[in-house]
């Protein structure tokens, strides 16, 4: 495996191998000296053409803990603002011989395009409405730690499914490992053909949450015109906010997840977000270990 472009083109064994490898890296993050020399001398470029706190920081922490040299590019400070095309930028970066490029971009398919024109490994850190594979992997890792398995679970995925790359990657992953995914949200936010990915669709949040093992909330993405898809935040919250009452339909030991950043009081209630069934911050902690595993498997050796 040279690139990680999406979950769609991975098989179950590859997914499980990444998750198993991540276990060893979790241990490093608990040591006093949180660093191993494994990727010494390798250059990794973090190219985030969209805002990001968690993912960008998580990748950078993962790179540094593996002793890779990491370089960050921000669009506002780059020649893209002078009109350079993305492919020219990519070829110029390639000329500096990096070993890996982490790319986040608002246009779906950007990482795939870069993988064709660059020699280095490409990791998709979120492309448009398409995929966010490392998020799905860290979610799966968190679920497995919590529930001990990834098959036979009932997962409710709620919110703006149409604009969510997190949703798409999670649907691919959880259906491949044999879990049952139900998506829910306002009809305007559910893509017409989403059933083709092997999920169930409902517009009633109670029905989605009923007997769920995992309740995964998605963010209302106001920067991506989801603002046009519902009357206002209060109206949305009235029907779809995960509060005590809605969560009471799930299994008593249900786990609550959110990829962040969360809109408190809109898609998730304060009490739930800070409550003991929420693993939102564990997701963040696990993200570092999972990204270390991905870097290790992509950049080490000739195959894996």
């Amino acid at each position, binding site marked *: 495996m040279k690139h990680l472009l999406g979950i769609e083109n991975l098989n179950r064994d590859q997914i499980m191998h990444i998750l198993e*490898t991540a276990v*060893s890296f979790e241990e490093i993050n608990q040591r006093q000296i949180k660093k*191993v020399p494994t990727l010494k001398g390798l250059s990794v470029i973090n190219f985030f053409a969209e805002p990001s706190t968690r993912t960008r920081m998580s990748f950078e922490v993962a790179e540094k803990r*593996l002793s890779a040299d990491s370089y960050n590019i921000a669009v506002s400070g780059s020649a893209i603002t002078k009109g350079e095309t993305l492919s020219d930028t990519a070829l110029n970066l390639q000329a500096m011989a990096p070993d890996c490029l982490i790319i986040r971009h608002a246009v779906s398919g950007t990482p795939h395009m870069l993988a064709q024109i660059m020699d280095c490994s490409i990791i998709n850190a979120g492309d448009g409405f398409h995929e966010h594979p490392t998020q799905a992997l860290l979610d799966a890792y968190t679920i497995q730690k919590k529930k001990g398995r990834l098959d036979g679970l009932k997962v409710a995925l709620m919110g703006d499914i149409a604009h969510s790359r997190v949703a798409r990657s999670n649907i691919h992953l959880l259906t491949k490992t044999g879990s049952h995914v139900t998506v829910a949200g306002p009809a305007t936010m559910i893509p017409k053909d989403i059933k083709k990915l092997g999920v169930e669709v409902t517009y009633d949040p109670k029905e989605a949450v009923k007997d769920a093992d995992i309740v995964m909330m998605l963010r209302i993405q106001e920067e991506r015109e989801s603002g046009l898809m519902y009357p206002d935040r209060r109206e949305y919250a009235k029907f779809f906010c995960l509060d005590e009452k809605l969560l009471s339909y799930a299994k008593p030991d249900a786990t609550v997840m959110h990829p962040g950043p969360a809109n408190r009081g809109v898609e998730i209630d304060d009490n739930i977000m800070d409550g003991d069934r929420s693993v939102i911050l564990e997701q963040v902690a696990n993200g570092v270990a999972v990204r270390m595993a991905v870097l*290790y498997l992509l950049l080490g*050796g*000739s195959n*894996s």
Partner: protein
Amino acid sequence: MKRKGLNITKVIMNAEEMERTINRMVHEIIERVGPKKNVAIVGIRTRGVPIAERILKKIQELEKVKVASGTIDIALYRDDFFKGLASPEVGPSNLNFNVDGANIVLIDDVIYTGRTVRAAIDAVMDYGRPASIMYAALVDRGHRELPIQPDFVGKAVQTGDNEAVAVYLKEIDDEDKVVVGEK
């Protein structure tokens, strides 16, 4: 793994001999570290671990003291990471004692080039600053590529470059023996 495609030419240690060899190593280790405090026995994954467990058990029986122990995985510290080999499986390391000031005895099944124990020393150092590190190998097959020698050796054997030494252990392979074979 080394076991695949190995043409066994001779058995250099059977179960009984292995037991006696390990017993002798135990006594040597006790003699050397006896007066020291903060001793820890650390097995190098994978086959150093069961050997370390046997040594630990015997030391505790003979000396009637509790001795610290752990395991170390060197996959992340290898120097051949980019040499076109398949990326090695990483396993968890587990050093649940204070490494600062400890007298650590690293245990492995075979010493060959010395690169494994070099990596293991680096790995231990990332957990703290031990007072000393010693090294015990069940078999020394020669051909060192680094200036590293074990403090305790079970058995030294002459081998050729085209040969391999494989240690079989009850805990993993259902039997105790050491064989030499052709690769």
